[in-house]
């Protein structure tokens, strides 16, 4: 079961759909088809050793399926930034990579503590990263903007004190 099923309650949310993809995307979320392949991962808080595993593995799975290198790159970058966010800003969480013939849908549900202001977090350069995280080369405030740039669809639901749910869609063509 995709992790988004767990988030049914109403929260502040953010939607981005790349121009031209509205119809396909609405139809996808209306139908909620069964994925052909589901890859699931868990990530611990501040686990900077394993962060990136899921993204690398998802990229490899898609590569084996013959997805074009430029698309692989976009999937890897978007997924990796989301994975790093989960490690750096949340108490870890779960990732589900749902693979279809024509697209990938990746869901990230963390263990909190939620975001104060989603719109603000979308501004390039805005960061709440700690010193520890910055020392590792993160915290440039480009995580969410980088996801948006590489994904065809980005949806975020979060509120302070709760969980954050992020999902992305990337079409293969």
């Amino acid at each position, binding site marked *: 079961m995709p992790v988004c099923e767990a988030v049914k309650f109403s929260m502040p949310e953010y939607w981005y759909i790349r121009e031209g993809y509205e119809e396909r995307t609405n139809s996808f979320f209306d139908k909620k088809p069964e994925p052909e392949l589901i890859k699931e991962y868990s990530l611990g808080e501040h686990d900077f050793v394993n962060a*990136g595993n899921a*993204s690398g593995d998802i990229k490899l799975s898609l590569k084996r399926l013959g997805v074009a290198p430029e698309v692989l790159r976009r999937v890897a*970058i978007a997924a990796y930034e989301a994975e790093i966010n989960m490690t750096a800003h949340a108490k870890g969480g779960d990732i589900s990579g749902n693979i279809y013939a024509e697209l990938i849908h990746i869901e990230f549900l963390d263990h909190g503590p939620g975001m104060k202001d989603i719109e603000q977090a979308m501004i390039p350069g805005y960061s709440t990263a700690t010193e520890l995280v910055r020392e*590792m*080369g993160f915290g440039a405030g*480009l*995580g969410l903007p980088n996801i948006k740039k590489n994904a065809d669809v980005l949806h975020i639901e979060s509120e302070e004190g709760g969980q954050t749910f992020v999902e992305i869609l990337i079409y293969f063509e």
Partner: protein
Amino acid sequence: MKLKQVLELLDGELLTEEADLETEVSSAFGSDLISDILHLTKEPTLLLTGLTNPQIIRLADMIDLFGIVFVRGKIPPKDVIDMAKERDLPLLSTKYTMYKTSGILYNAGLRSCKI
């Protein structure tokens, strides 16, 4: 430019013994910010950085890197070097700063990565 020339020009140390020094390197990019590296590199590149944590090796799972040059004499911990070996990712270290490293390679004809 071949990796062995990079090593010679930078008076560097090879941290991954089995690396193929005949590997052809066509462009380079330098940064200590991971999001910048992900965001800006548009083609396979040699990466110059001062970051030595495991995530710098993970980057090679996301984008295509010919290898990593650690500047300012930085040497990553053994487990990070092992991660690179598993991925056949060449690691070099040089005592030169990012600026000097970039200048030497650029002067020798190694162009900037397309951004």
